[in-house]
């Protein structure tokens, strides 16, 4: 297995240019919503709104201004699949279409996907959707095809300000720590890393430097796997089985002896 690879997205240098979105679509040949005929969302400069089967990169725009404008920030963040070390989508996929690659990334094999959509509900970040062209669940592959030949993912290649950094997880963590140190030195005390350690789903192979609460960016503060419910649902399954068993016992109790 190759070394684990991923993204470190430094949102403090993102300029919201969306070059990542376009580069992703161009490389992966993803269609535009409704052939490009859209409606103004009214939500800042965000008109694609979400990650889904045809948007594998998505730039969020968050406007924070006090009424008198004395305080103001316009946060931008390029979001993508987190390639979780413990991935919910992979857990639930019934056909084995979702695999962990030699780069420790998570990829949906389109030809194995039966379109059941279980993974869509299982992802705590909401990154998966059905691509209407293929009819299958799709999301970022971390440009598996490019990585196979030693190229960096299209989005990271296109990013003009190095907001999206691609590399080995080891290097990216070092880079992130260095940047954290630099920000703290300049007085940006709100900066923190999201998903860089194992406490979050075993670690996110796409992790972020943020300057506000995760919810502000539409990220779950404490993402969970679908298997978190396993214990409880196992107990309930047993209880259910017992109830059904007992009911059958009671229902059919008299059947043998009764007259027809």
């Amino acid at each position, binding site marked *: 297995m190759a070394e684990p690879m991923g993204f470190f997205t430094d949102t*403090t*240098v993102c*300029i*919201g*240019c*969306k*070059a990542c*979105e*376009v580069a992703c*679509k*161009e490389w992966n040949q993803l*269609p*535009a*919503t*409704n*052939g*490009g*005929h*859209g*409606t*103004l*969302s*009214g939500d*800042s*400069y965000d*008109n*694609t709104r979400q990650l889904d089967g045809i948007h594998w990169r998505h730039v969020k725009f968050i*406007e924070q*201004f006090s*009424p008198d*404008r004395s305080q*103001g*920030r*316009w*946060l*931008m963040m390029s979001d993508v699949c987190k390639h979780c070390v413990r991935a919910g989508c992979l857990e639930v996929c019934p056909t084995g279409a979702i695999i962990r690659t030699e780069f420790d990334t998570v990829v949906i094999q389109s030809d194995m996907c039966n379109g059941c959509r279980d993974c869509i509900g299982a992802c705590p970040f909401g990154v998966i959707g059905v691509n209407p062209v293929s009819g299958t669940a799709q999301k970022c592959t971390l440009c598996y095809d490019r990585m196979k030949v030693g190229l960096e993912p299209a989005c990271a290649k296109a990013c*003009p*300000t*190095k907001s999206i950094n691609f590399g080995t997880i080891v290097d990216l963590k070092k880079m992130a720590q260095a940047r954290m140190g*630099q920000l703290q030195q*300049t007085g940006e005390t709100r900066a923190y890393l999201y998903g860089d350690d194992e406490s979050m789903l075993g670690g996110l192979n796409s992790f972020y430097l943020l300057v506000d609460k995760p919810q502000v960016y539409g990220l779950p503060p404490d993402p969970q796997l679908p298997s978190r419910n396993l214990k409880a649902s196992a107990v309930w399954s047993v209880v259910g089985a017992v109830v059904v068993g007992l009911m059958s016992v009671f229902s059919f109790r008299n059947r043998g002896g009764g007259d027809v």
Partner: protein
Amino acid sequence: MYPRSMVDSDCVVIQGSNMAECHPVAFRWPMQAKLKGAKLIHVDPRFTRTSAVADIHAPIRAGSDVAFLGGLVNYVLQSERWKRDAFFREFVVNYTNAATIVGDEFKDTEDLDGVFSGLMRYAPSVKEWPLDGFVGQYDTRTWQYAAAPAGPRATPPAGPPFDPLVRSLLTPPPRRDETLQQPRTVFQIVKRHFSRYTPEMVERVTGCPKETFLKVAETILANSGRDRTTSFAYAVAWTQHTNGPQTIGCCALLQLLLGNIGRPGAGVMALRGHASIQGSTDVPTLYHSIHGYMNHPSALKRHDSLRDWLLTETTPRGYWANTPKFMVSYLKSMYGAAATKENDFGYDWHPRIIGDHSHLPMFVAMNEGRVKGLLCIGQNPATSLNASVERKGLARLEWLVVKDNWLTETATFWQNSPEIKSGQLRSQDIRTEVFFFPAAQVAEYDGSFTNTQRMLQWHFKAANPPGDCRTDLWFTHQLARRLKQMYAHSTLPRDEGFKHLVWEYDSDDPHERERGEPDAHKILKEINGYYTDQPDRHLAGFGDLKDDGSTTCASWIYCGVFPAPDRNLAARKQADPPGAPGAQLDWGWAWPANRRILYNRASADREGRPWSERKKWVWWDGAKWTGYDVPDFAPTKAPLSKAAPDAIGLDALSGTEPFIMKADGVGWLYVPGGLADGPLPAHYEPVESPVPNPLYRQQSSPVLKYWKLDGNALAPLGDQRFPHIMTTYRLTEHYLSGAMSRWSPWLTELQPEFFVEISPELAAEKGIGNTDWIAVSTPRGRIRAKALVTRRMRVFTIDGRTVHHVGMPFHWGYQGLSTGDAANELTALVGDPNVSIHEGKAFMCNVEKA
């Protein structure tokens, strides 16, 4: 300066530009500077993508940049730090014209309440072209330096050689006072001129809170000096005003005072349009200039013969003394063997201009029926400035050629324009015959781009264009060939130029030849130049040029890019090793002479030593100039050497005079010649403004251009029908009029609809909700758009009044996947007196719920 140099800045001020939005790729350099600890400042009416990553956002009213910059000049001159720091004094006394004394007749705006001496009524020069549009004009004679009177001028001999002619132009040098105390020194005039640009006045005029202004001023001053440098970056939000060049000049003035010119991480970064806008002024599509920034022969000047042209255009001191070599080599490239010493190298065959033939007056002329045909390549006037007037002009043409990738608004104006849709006009009544030529894309041919840092980079053909699509080179090549054929047997004197025009660019590649495509390398060779008698011997640099016809060179500034048939330096892609302090000299080729920072002799002190280790760039090593860059100075002229008396060219400049293109070798704080609207920048209100000029009685530039015609009315001062300031701009997601971007679904889904940005305060006042349809109007037109209500737009208080801004991207039109009204239905045909650019960044409008 060049964008990469911004990495070396300790402070980057972006004003008149939304760099992150509009130049996102170049913006990597300020971001890298920021990651190294530099301060990033954005001065802009709106809070934009650039403001989002800036350390300070200073909001100013659209159209008040000179007031803000003038405030900075005054702040610097009044500051104790500037007065005490020996660096500033050494830089300013030696490297600028601060010590030069201005003639007694000059009167400043402080003396004449907003105008300079020499203001006159404007009278058109020729009756054939009454379209220059000036509302007034300056006689610039009173603006000159004080000098001993020139002796009688001997009648210069005709050349070549032209040296005696150049020598005959020498006049006594201007007087100087290096103590800077004499009241007529440039320094004292500048100080008085800006003395009323106080922080309080800045707040009153621009609406920027005084505290924010002071924070900006302190940051800039703290990051300027011997060991630190500040750079400025601007784009068309400085140029698209009736005083654009003065705004840029004001910034240059400030940067000279701060010693921020000719040094790493310093300067004024002109962020030019994408691709090859720089190239299109170097080898120009401009009407008033021929290759290499020489003035176009004109019927309005003493340009009757080559000798007259040279006498009028040559400056005897400084590098422009070589003008005869540039001009004769240019004429040789135009007319080849037919250009001889005896016929003035074909000068008489060269066309001459009779006035302002730039975009705005040309469309006025079209409206008057003076223009027969238009070749429209890479432009989309149907949604351009005051679009309905432009379309009216198009409708009066006999023929129109549009060459583009898509059927643009211009190509379909006769079919789909608002006038047709509203029934005002019927297609069958438009007589213009429209030809559409499908264009090849850039990856489909060889050629060069010249980017904003004057760097040529070669691009290679990757694929054949589809179908009938052809390159722009093909079009020009085929047109020229056909015209030459047409004129071949003409006996009219006016056709001599076409008959002798050298045009030998056929491709040697059989496939390209069959397609009719020319050879881009042959064109590059013509631009670079060669020895007339040995066409295979390319010129190695403009130092090789001669004034006797023995060299042929289309554009002297590009001379050296192609020094040998097998060495196209624009095609180089060799980066410096990581961390090296160099200027990436083996990456592409930058004119002039592959120099990356102009006037870089200023990066060393008088004695030729780097100002500091940290800001080392070019220095004197005891025998020659050396450094990280190509030195911009006579290579072996010692730092303290004296100018030779009565010499011409570079010999007329001393070893301490870095600005070698200037006759006096120094940077100009005060501009005695070359500008139409004054030697110093003064704050003028835009043509349409919400307030009386708080600084002078003169409201707007007294010499701006305005074309009075139907559909071009202006809102008078205080017009309550149009109370808000409109400013137009672009988005990252789209490109210019959208002629390329609104056809790409990947881009239209990112910005699907035309919108207008307004503040929640204005929205509440007008009962407008987010994404509501609204109507925006000016005296020129009325359009519909969706409202994007955002706190990134703010309310300004200008001179005690509440003023709202309305922001509008200009990318839409009636063709493409995403259509919408064109912002330019609202703009006016008004122009700057120097370059005739329109005022699209500040005018008055109204908004209401539609």
